């Protein structure tokens, strides 16, 4: 297990990272280059793993680039937590309210498609430097990858619990 930033008990590797923003998204959106592994599972600090996560790695090994979970923010809740200006720009640039993915649980394989995705995610996040989900959506749409979707059980459900915002609240 790799941790970026503050020390965490149980981590086998650590990359020191001066925190630049409250949500740690400056570090998060650099993970495409920070991760030392061919296949990585990223987990937000406020997640708790309750099931065997090898399924995601097996799917990557079968040839998928990214394994992740659709966001629960759709319909009238679409990107509700993202700033109004960014939300409006995202809808305008996409031509509509396309599907948003949750960036808090993400398996990925290192290859040229995911390298482009990570670089775009970083660049899109840098435009507003707020939440990362709108940036992930814009980056995903413009950088096609082989994405296999899991259900909410894997991000905010029985397999991977997500205590949204709890890590920040304890700081």
């Amino acid at each position, binding site marked *: 297990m790799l941790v970026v930033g503050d020390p965490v008990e149980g981590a086998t590797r650590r990359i020191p990272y001066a925190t630049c923003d409250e949500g740690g998204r400056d570090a998060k959106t650099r993970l495409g280059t920070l991760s030392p592994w061919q296949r990585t599972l990223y987990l937000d600090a406020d997640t708790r793993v309750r099931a065997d996560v090898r*399924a995601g790695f*097996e*799917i990557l090994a*079968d*040839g*998928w680039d990214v394994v992740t979970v*659709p966001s*629960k923010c*759709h*319909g009238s809740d679409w990107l509700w937590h993202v700033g109004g200006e960014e939300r409006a720009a995202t809808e305008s640039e*996409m*031509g*509509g*309210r*396309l*599907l948003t993915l949750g960036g808090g649980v993400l398996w990925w394989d290192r290859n040229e498609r995911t390298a482009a995705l990570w670089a775009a995610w970083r660049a899109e996040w840098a435009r507003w430097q707020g939440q990362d989900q709108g940036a992930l959506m814009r980056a995903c*749409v*413009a*950088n*096609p*990858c*082989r*994405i*296999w*979707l*899991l*259900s*909410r*059980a*894997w991000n905010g459900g029985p*397999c991977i619990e997500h205590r949204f915002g709890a890590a920040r609240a304890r700081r």
Partner: protein
Amino acid sequence: MWLQLIKPYRIVEPGGRPTMHEPGEMLAVKNKDEAKKLIRDGFALDVAGGQGSTPEGCGVAVRGPLDRTPHWIEALDLGCQSVKGIDELPYAVTILWHPKYPPNCLQLMATFKTMRAYAWDLAVPIKSYAKLTGDIGTEADRAKTLALIHDLRIPYYNTHLLFVKRNDITKALVHTWRKELSGGGDECLAFMRALYTIKPLILALPVDAVQHRAA
């Protein structure tokens, strides 16, 4: 002006008789102020206005017989033909559409443009955020699917509306899908197995890319 309803809407006909119109229905609204009010109040979408022209080479392949061209296809000025099989892709970007459910026209135009602008092979709406792959089909069908895709706690796709770019990957996909279906079983599970086998660049669309109510 063509509008697509996204909420039920009651119209009083000239004879004074009220008629209820359902989400997904197309309305030809001549009065601009009335059209603007319907849009502003969240009852309808302007399917063509503000969306620019329909991207070239896009059309609808209707699965099964078609008595008349649906209003939404006319309003968007899309090509349309009836096809017998899921492996017929008559356009550069084909909407393979089962005429049971009308699409959300705004999502449709956004998806067409995304497909033309980027290298996505296909785009398909998720069927449900709650009902999962493990909740459909027979036990045998699910077991066959699980053996391939590792976990059934995943969303499955709405095969009533597929945006398919015509290329070797999608030809392989629809061929594999047809092969998976040849033994019977659930169409959506067969699609999931074909998808997992071929691994196209698939853009997942939100559930509301398809109107929820049957036409």
